[in-house]
Each structure stands twice: as C-alpha cells, then as structure tokens.
C-alpha cells in the first residue's frame, strides 16, 4: 500500500470511528513511511510528505472527535440515562 493509499484508508477509518480499521491503516502507513526512506530527494517527495503530515493531522482531529463522543456519553448519562452496556463508540 502506498503512503497515499494508507493515508486515505486511515482517514476513512477515523472519520467513521472504526478503531480496528484505523489500526490496520496506520500499520500500513508506517510501512509506507519506511519505504520512503530509500526514495531519492525531490520536490515530489517533499510534496508527498507534506500531504501525509496533513492527512495525519486530520486523523488526529478525528481521534479528538472520538473523545468528544465519549463526552457525549457523559452527557447522556448526566441526563439520567443508563448507558447500553454494548455501547458502540463508532455510533
């Protein structure tokens, strides 16, 4: 998987809150990053790195949203609701 493909997969997984898929995507991404180490310096490589860093920030943002979802759980509980034991954070 190329770095771009791994970034796309990670973004898709983080957007949907699918932590398991995100885990696999980040594993692919780290492999792709490792392969870049042998690439020749070029403007194109610099652009790919910048894009990858940007994509990573989006994923980081999504993970923050995930914590927000937990905050939403807290809000529901505060309203006196009993959380479903099978609560799905991806929801």
């Amino acid at each position, binding site marked *: 998987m190329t770095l771009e493909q791994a970034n796309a997969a990670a973004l898709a997984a983080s957007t949907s809150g699918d932590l398991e898929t995100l885990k696999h995507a*980040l594993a692919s991404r780290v492999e792709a990053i490792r392969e870049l180490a042998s690439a020749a310096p070029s403007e194109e490589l610099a652009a790919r790195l910048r894009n990858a*860093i940007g994509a990573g920030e989006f994923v980081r943002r999504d*993970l923050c949203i995930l914590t927000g979802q937990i905050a939403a759980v807290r809000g529901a509980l505060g309203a006196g609701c009993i959380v479903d034991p099978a609560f799905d954070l991806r929801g």
Partner: protein
Amino acid sequence: MSTPLVFTGVSTFSSDFQSILTRAVQIAQIPVTQLQSKDSNLLQQKTLLGALNSAVADLSSSLASLGAVGANKALTATSSAPLVVSVSATGATSATSYTINSITSAATVASERSTSGYTDAAATPVSFGTLTLVIAGVAQTIGLTSNNLNNLRDRINALGAGVTASVVISGSGSALSVTSNSGPQSIQLFDGPNSTGTDLLTNGGTGTEQSTATYADPAVTQVSTGTLTLQFGSSSHTFKLASNSLISLRDQINGLGAGVTASILTTSNGNFLSLSANATGATTVKLFDGVGTTGTNLLTGTNQGTNAVFQLNGINISQAGNVVNSVISGVTFTILGASATPVTLSTTSDRTQLSSALQDFVAKYNTLKQQVNGQVGQAAGLLAGDTVINQLQRLLRQVTSYHSSAGSVQSMADLGVQFSNTGVASFNQTVFNSLTDTQVTDGFSFVGSASTGLGGFSANLSAFSDPISGFIKAEQDGIDRTDRSIQSHISALGDRIAIMQANLTLQLEKADALQAELQSQQSQLTGTLQGLSLVLYGKNVNALG
C-alpha cells in the same frame, strides 16, 4: 460498587482519556446514588415509624389503663385487720363493705407422723408387708414385699454372681431359669438364709437350671420365705426379696399421687414417717398396717387439717382453702388466722388512681403529639404527607375534643387536663383536687372503660400500633418490600456499570494506542521532511509548506 478504573495509556492524551472515563463512570453511577439515597430515606422512614409505633402503643395502653380505672371506679379494697384477713379488689364495681367475724380457724394442712420410730430407715421392717393408706376416706393399698418371680430374677441378675436369670413360660405358669455365664457348673437356689433350705432349682449340672415349681403370676405369686441363698460353684450369695422399710414406704406413698407427701424425720428416737397433705383443709390421714382399715393405724391423729371457718355478714362459711374469691364479686380475701374480733372489708374509690392515670395519659399524649408534629409543616421530616401521620393527626384531635353530654364532667378540661394553643397537654392538679366525690364519680363515667368513652380510643390507636396487623406495621412491611426491590435494582445497575466500564476501557485504550502510533508517524514524517528541505533548499521548511 464499581472498582476504580485504572487506564495506563502511552500518548499525551492518556490523562484526558482517564479523566473522561472516570467521569463517565461517575455519571453512570448517578442513578445508583439516587437509588441509594432513596433507600436510605426509606429506611429512615421505617425507623421513624418504629418510634411512632411505640408512642402510639404507649398512648393506647395509657388510655386502656385510664378506661380500666373508669370501669372499676378505681376501687381498692382494705381490711380493718390485714394480719387476720387480707383483701384485694379484683374487679369490684361498687363501693361497699363486708363484715367477717367468728373466724374459728384458718385452713391448715393435715400433717401426721408415725407413732413409732424405726431404727434403720432402710432396713427396719415397718409393717407386715402390706399397708392401707386412707386419705379423706379413700383407701389405697401399699405392698412393701416383692416376693415374686420377677423380683427374684432381677435380684439374682443384680448379684453379679456369674449367672443370668430369666423368667420362662412353663405349662400354665412361669418358671425361673438360671444359666451359668461360664459353662456347666453347679447352680443351687436355697429358700432360706443358708444351704439348709429347700433348693428351688433342678440339678441337671448342665449350666442351666430351672425352678422345680411353676408360679401362676410372676409378678404376684410368692416364691419364697423372703430370704434366699444362691450357690454358684463355690460362691454363695444370700439376699432378701422384701423391701419392708421406711424408705420404701415413703417412696411408695409419694408414688401414689394421693395428695399427700411422705418424708422421713430422723431423730434421736429413731426415724419417723411424716405425712402432710398437699392442700389445706380438714381431712383424714391414716395408715393402717395390713389390708383394709382393721389393722393398727401407724400414724398419729393429732393434726388432720382444718378448714377456714368464719362468718361473712352473718353467713357461716367453711372451706378448705384460705383464699376466698367466689363469695364477693370482684373481691378476693384471704383468711390468715383465727380471730373473734370482727374484721371489716371495704371497697372504696381511690381518686389518686384517676389522677395518676390522667397524668400518664398527658405524658404519653405529648410524646406522640411531638412525634406527629415533627412530620407536618414546613420543617416536616421524612414522614411528611404520610397517610399514617394524617390519620393520627385526626385521631388525636378526636381524643382532645372528646366530650360527654352527661354528668358534671363532660370534657378532659373538667378533670384538669388542658391543652395549649400548640396542642401540648398538661395536667392541672389543683383543678383535679377541687373535684367533689360526685365529680370524681362522673369522671369515672367520662373516661368510660377500655372500650367505651375516652378509654375507647385505645382501640383506635391500637389499630395503628398492633405489632401484627397495625397500619404502621403494614407500612413498614411495604418499606421492606421496596427496600428489597431497590437493593436488587442497585445490584443490577452495578453489574451494568461494570460491563460498561470494561467496554469503555477497551475502546479508550485502543484509541490511545492509535494516538500514540499516529503521533510517532507524524514526528517521523516531520523529521524526514525537514531533512529533505535541507537537502533541497538548504533550510528547514514548515511541515505544511
């Protein structure tokens, strides 16, 4: 409750996740806390109801006592000579007096002893063997001998002589069988104190011998002269079948259940049999030696008991006991001794009983009223609005406003019981002391009885405080049921929270790990970009260009 969560993350977000997770669990526990609070309130309500129940029961009891005072008009009985005749009121309903005179005797128990003393209480014969005890003309025969086959068997077996005796059926009667415990040996049983008497056994030499004679009734038919000698091998044992002694006589008499108690008086002149009737009253206690009453009476005849003999208002009365409770309704008196001087028994109303009962009522009323007041109004306790409280409030108002339209005492105020503006009761002793006898009598009518008048409220209150079927008990039972339900609910919620904790922990640990991984990748990419920028441009360039 739930165990604290411990979340060990590796990213810079770990502490945030931890706080969120902890907070989430705390919030999830809010319903549990609410339930626990509700349960705590319920249990406090139950405690309050318990205290209330005691106060209600106390007031109910006090009103019942007040009613009892009214019903018997606080009558007490007195005797002009309490050492001669004691008296007590046991439900008298009118004041009156009675005269007891010519008290010839108080009832005493019959008590006799044997005319002769006996040297050895356990051995000296006291009779020919059969006696007749006569109590109040009823004769009972006592046999002191045990000269029969069964006793002979038992006595032989008790010797420990190395043989075993038994009674066997033989023809139309019974026979004695004696068997050696150690094989064939000579066994002889002589009728008499030595071997010169008749041998009562066969002489087969097999180790088992049988009586040569048979006996019609093993429990009755005489088997010997009373003394026997068992010869077994080279050992000889002499024993007696008779139990003709003072001790045996005492025990047999006591075993008769004849209404007398026998005992042995040991003196320097020997042992005497003493017989005392178990109850007072004139009777006859005689002990004849022999069957029937033609023999010698072995007992003295000096104290055959006496009846209580006296006159009540000129009527002759003689009775076995000293306690007289069936002659005057509601009065029990006891003759304590003889007296030629007339004794006056009087029943009179004791107004202090009414006064004390009213004071007790005031105290119990105030206690209950205070508890009820604590559950109403702005500062009401946990029983605010409770049906029992409302009903008790109404009932207490009925009690305090109770009045009668008859007689000179028509309200509690007439008896000195007053209520303040705040409902606190007090007893005015001065007002009570100023009551005339007629007013006191009317006061008895006013308080009624345990079921009527003011005292009748006792039943209304006991409907609340009855420990089995009372309203308060029913409410406490309901609280117990709710408590069990809440506890069950709390337990279920705890289980669900525990599951939720586990799920959240897994999710958050996973998210934290991904954050760490992402952070690492971003750092690596940034480093690589910076290195590339140096190569391409000779300087670091911002990661995003």
